Structure formats: C-alpha cells, structure tokens
C-alpha cells in the first residue's frame, strides 16, 4: 500500500498548504483559487477512504457550483487592500479569541472520538451491505432511517433560497419585458396596420 500512502501524504500536504494559502495570500481571487484546490484535494482524500460518492459530490457541489459563485462575486468586487488591512490590529484579539475557542472545541471533540470512539454513541456503525456500492448504501440510509432529517434539511435550503429571492427581487415600474406568448400570438392581422401619413405631419403617436 505504498502507493496509497504516497497519495495520502501528497493530498494531505496539498490540502493543508492550500488551506493556509487561502488565508495568507494577498489577492482575494488567488485566495478563492486556493480554496478550490483545497476542496479538490479533500475530495481526493475522500476517494482514498473509499467514499467515492462523497468525493464526487464534493467536487460537483462545492467546486463546480459554490466556488464558481464565490469566484464570480470576488472577481466583480473591487477589493481595496489598504482598507482591508486597516482594522487588522483592532479585530485581532476578537478574531484570535474565536479561533482559539473553535480550535479548543475541535480538539475536545477529536480526543473524545479518539478515546471513546465514534461507535460508542447511540448507534453502531452500519455493517457494509453485501454487494452494494456505497452510493446505494448512502441512499438507503438517507431515504429510510433519516428521511425526515433529510427532507427537513431540504426544506431549510428551500426557505433560504426563497428568502434570498424575496429580499432581492424588485419590480421596477416602466421596465419593458419580453412576453413570449404575445410575440408568438402575433399574426399578419394584428401585427401590421397600414397608415397613410400626410406630408409634414408624421405619425404623432
């Protein structure tokens, strides 16, 4: 399994390195590009774990859609680096505090899992079903045991989407919109009229 070990260390180093680069590079567009690299190598790590479905979903959803929109927004914003750096010293203690708490929590959870084991919770890890790929296994679990949570998560996303649309949708009066049905319904009778224009008067609409 030397090949797997090489692949793991390579992907892990790239993940951590590009993760660091996300927060340290100056140019925000480069930052997003490094974020994409991080996602991509994380997907590679999933593949090494044998979770090919999760790996592909990570790439399709996060790299293919979410990060594109990030990049889209960041490219269009004209980020002023001077203004960004101004508040650095002021927000440093608060940011450090939040980062510290987060790190502590993660270490606590990680040690709890490592010593107690994730399996010591209320539910035993599912035994691998014979002859099923992990895509099918995930499907069975999501749509049977966890179907309510799954649907609830979908509803939360739907509400968020509708909220975003409601907040940003404004109908400007006086904007001419294309009504396809009207265009299709036009024919020679109602689409044309013949007008006699007298010299010097014009149409006078």
């Amino acid at each position, binding site marked *: 399994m*030397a*090949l797997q070990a090489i692949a793991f260390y390579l992907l892990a180093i790239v993940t951590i390195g590009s993760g660091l680069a996300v927060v340290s590079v100056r*140019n925000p*567009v*480069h930052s997003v*590009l490094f974020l*994409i690299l991080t996602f991509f190598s994380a997907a590679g790590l999933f593949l090494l774990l044998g979770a*090919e*479905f999760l790996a*592909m*979903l990570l*790439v*399709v959803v996060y*790299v*293919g*859609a979410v990060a*594109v*929109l990030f*990049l*889209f927004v960041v*490219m*269009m914003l004209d980020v002023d680096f001077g203004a960004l750096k101004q508040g650095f010293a002021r927000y440093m203690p608060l940011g450090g505090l939040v980062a510290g708490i987060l790190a502590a929590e993660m270490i606590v959870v990680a040690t709890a899992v490592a010593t107690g084991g994730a399996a010591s919770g209320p539910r035993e890890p599912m035994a691998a079903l014979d002859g099923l*790929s992990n*895509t099918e296994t995930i499907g069975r679990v999501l749509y049977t045991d966890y179907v309510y949570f799954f649907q609830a998560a979908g509803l939360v996303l739907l509400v968020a989407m509708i909220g975003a649309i409601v907040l940003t949708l404004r109908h400007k009066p006086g904007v001419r919109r*294309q009504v396809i049905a009207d265009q299709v319904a036009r024919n020679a009778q109602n689409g044309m009229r013949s007008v006699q224009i007298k010299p010097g008067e014009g149409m006078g609409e």
Partner: protein
Amino acid sequence: MDATTNFWATPGGWTLLAVGQILAVMIWILLSLAFLLLADRKIWAGVQMRKGPNMVGPFGLLQSFADFLKFVLKEIVIPDGADKVVFILAPLISFVLAFAAWAVVPLAPGWVVSDINVGVLYLLAISSLGVYGIIMGGWASNSKYPFLGSLRSAAQMVSYEVSIGFVIITVILLAGTMNLQTIVAQQAGGFWNWYVFGGGLANLPMILIMVPMAVVFFISALAETNRPPFDLPEAESELVAGYQVEYSSTPYLLFMIGEYANIVLMCAIITILFFGGWQAPFPTPFLESWPATAQSFFGFMWFFAKTVFFFFLIAMVKAIVPRYRYDQLMRLGWKIFLPTSLVAVVLVAAWRVFGPAQGAI
C-alpha cells in the same frame, strides 16, 4: 503467459499499463480531433456553399496539422497587466480537464481506462470543473472583453449544468447504476433497448419522457460547451473572441483543443446515456463466436459512428441557428429546461416504483 500476467499485476507494470492506455486514448482523441475540426469547418462551409479549407493535402485533409504547426511556432504573448501564473494555468486546466473526463468513457466492450462505480458522477464533476479554465483565463487577461466573456460563461455553464444533472438522473433511474460500462451493457439487443426509447419494450411509455430528455441534453450540451447558438462567451460580434482575446499561440491552441475535446465528450456522453454507446442498433447474437478483440472493434466502430453523427449535428447547429440573446439563454435554462427535467425525474421515478417493473433495481 504466466510471467506476463504477473508483471502487469506489479505496481511497475500496472503503472506502465495505465500510462499506455491513457496515451492510446489521448492520441486517438487528438488524431480524431484534427479531422473533426476540419469536418466542422467543412460542414459549416458546405451549408454556406463555400468550399472550406482545401489547400493543404488532398481536400484540405491536413489543414488541422498545418494549423497546429502554426500555433506551436508562434510567439506566446502575455499581456502586461496579466496575472502571469493564472494566465498560463487557465488553458492548461481546460486542456487537462477535457482529457481527464475521457478516463471513464467506455469506448468498446472492455475498453475503458478506469471502470469506476460512479462514472456518471465523475463525468459531471469534471465537466463542472471545466468552467474554471474559462473564468481564470478571462480574469487573468486583465482586459474588459475577456472578463465579460468569462462572466457570461460562468453563469451560463452553472445554469445548464443543473438541467444536465437532472437529465442524467432520469437515465440513472432507468439504469439503476452509475457505472457507464454497465449502463451501456444494459442497452444491448437492439435500438428499442436504448434509453432514449425508455430502455426496453416494457418501458415503452417512457419514450414520451426520454426523447424530450435527450433533446434537452443535446441543447444543454451545446450551452455547456459554449457552442453556437449559445456561444455568447466568445461572441465575436460583441466580445471579439470573449475569454480568449488575449491568448495567442500554444495557450490558445490548448484552449481550442480543450473546447473541441469537450464537445466530442458531450457527443460521447449522449451516445452512451441515450443511444446505446457501443451497442449495435440490432440484436447481435452472431458476435458470440467472434474473438474478444474483434467484438471490441465491432463495438468501437458503432460508438465512433454514433459520436461522429452527434458531432455532425452540433456542427450543423452552428451553421444553421442564429445566436441567442443572453436573457433568452437564461430563460431557456432556468424557466424551461429546469422545470421540464425536474418533472421528468419525478415521472421516471414514479414509473420505476409503480410501473410494471416495480422495485426491480
């Protein structure tokens, strides 16, 4: 014989075998692309009653190779204000991704570089990454037209990926697997078993859903590869050449090869998902007495013919259909294709659960 099988199982032999397969596929695609590019120009010219390129070689057959030499020998110009690393990286990403997707494409029985379980998802993932080459190229050029082109492209590709995803789900529902080789194998035994006709006579009512889905997929594929009538990212009358304005010589060549490799890939995906991949359109019981290699060649011939046919359709669309306006493009993607394909997914799923083949996966 025993010694050779052992050698191919060792890491060294395995790597050598994989590299050899990848090279074989890549060289085959590059060679095909050279002639498909010429075919594209010839078809376009034919529709407009021109002759097209006809000077280099007989009937202009070697035109693509002359173009290749020209691109390679020219000087690479990098604009002054460009972000150099990203500028060079963008065409490389386009090129690499366009070829990476071919890894899971089943070319014939047993002819596939990597026969993975989530092949369909892999194709979706790689094609959704393709947008980065274009966005990065447009942004790194530090120029207005490329930037506008790349913004258009990003919005367009993200929009049409959604409907492509749903169309693919209908096929996955019918097939019950995401392995491309299995999807093709299930369409054996004649054209009525192809998924465009619902996959088998028992599923014949699905023809009402799958034929429109194949059309939706074809049109979405045009949008996804920035082909006319959806070539707004490179609309020459508005944006000069969109995201590739500042590119010259080899980087431009990489962009162009990547673009055409993607187009052919889309043709191959339509062939595999809807039109039976390497299956012949009639029952082939006589194949069983053939040696395995001959069977593979027989299958490959069909796959190649079907793919070229869809490439011909795409080339004809370029010659015939005028360019869409951008708001019309978005309307088509979000207000027509997305609801249609969503309803199709629901109907196909309902057919799978309540139809005659209840619960059979």
